[in-house]
């Protein structure tokens, strides 16, 4: 599957089959993380990959937006102090979140290209997730990605007309 095909076929999955992720998919996601760029090469992000069933249940307990029973959850974290020290105020205020978005996209597309589904989740109680994972105080969870094998078709997608999303040369053209 080429990149554009992967992008076009990826949809958020909210129901998963009771099946563990194949090891090569987890390894590929690790590679996707390690090869994702970061502004000023600050590398202030940290990623916790969770596959233990009990820990996933505990995460789900405090992540109301996490649907279904995923085979894995990746917790995308950011270190504000490290971003400030290595990337400056722009990284600390804004770019570290863009960095996480870029990495999230790389992970989800990697999973999709290998036959697994995903869903990004922001609806969770961050202090609870931090406690469950034993995160250092300066490392905050910012996004979850659930991973697994979708067992239901995705929801219908609604999109704005292309003209409302893309302009050429000047806004509105």
């Amino acid at each position, binding site marked *: 599957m080429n990149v554009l095909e992967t992008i076009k076929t990826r949809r958020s999955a909210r129901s998963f089959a009771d099946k563990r992720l194949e090891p090569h998919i987890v390894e590929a996601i690790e590679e996707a993380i390690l090869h994702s760029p970061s502004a000023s090469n600050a590398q202030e992000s940290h990623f916790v990959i969770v596959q233990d069933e009990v820990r996933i249940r505990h995460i789900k*307990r*405090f*992540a*109301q937006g996490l649907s279904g029973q995923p085979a894995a959850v990746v917790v995308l974290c950011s270190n504000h102090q490290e971003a400030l020290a290595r990337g400056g105020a722009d990284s600390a205020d804004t770019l570290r979140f863009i960095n996480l978005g870029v990495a999230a996209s790389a992970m989800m597309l990697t999973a999709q290209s290998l036959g697994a589904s995903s869903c990004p989740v922001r*609806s*969770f*109680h961050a202090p*609870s997730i931090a406690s469950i994972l034993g995160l250092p105080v300066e490392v905050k969870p910012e996004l979850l990605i659930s991973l697994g094998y979708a067992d239901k078709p995705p*929801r*219908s997608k609604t999109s704005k007309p292309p003209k409302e999303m893309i302009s050429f040369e000047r806004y509105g053209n």
Partner: protein
Amino acid sequence: MNAMETNLGAGDMRERLLDFAAYVLTSARALYREPQSYGPMRLADTLEKGLELLQAAGIRDETVEQAMAAVRETRPVAMTDPEGFAVALDRGIAVLVKATLGGKPEA
């Protein structure tokens, strides 16, 4: 309302109760910052999880199940079609009104 037998032990029920309580409180906390349309969705999901918990404890009510039928059917588009979801909620509420006034659930 039917009371059914259940094979769940006290430990399993406690875990399910913790799942439920955490879901409700976490949802409530998050709604301060989430889109307004998340509220109806979270409340419907809360009821669904509450019913699952009761069913695990051996309790099931056909009227409530009937009220939930339209809600369940429309739940996947709650975010993309909030007006449709509102109509489904109205249909579910109508079933409960009928039961409140003494009607019986349809077969």
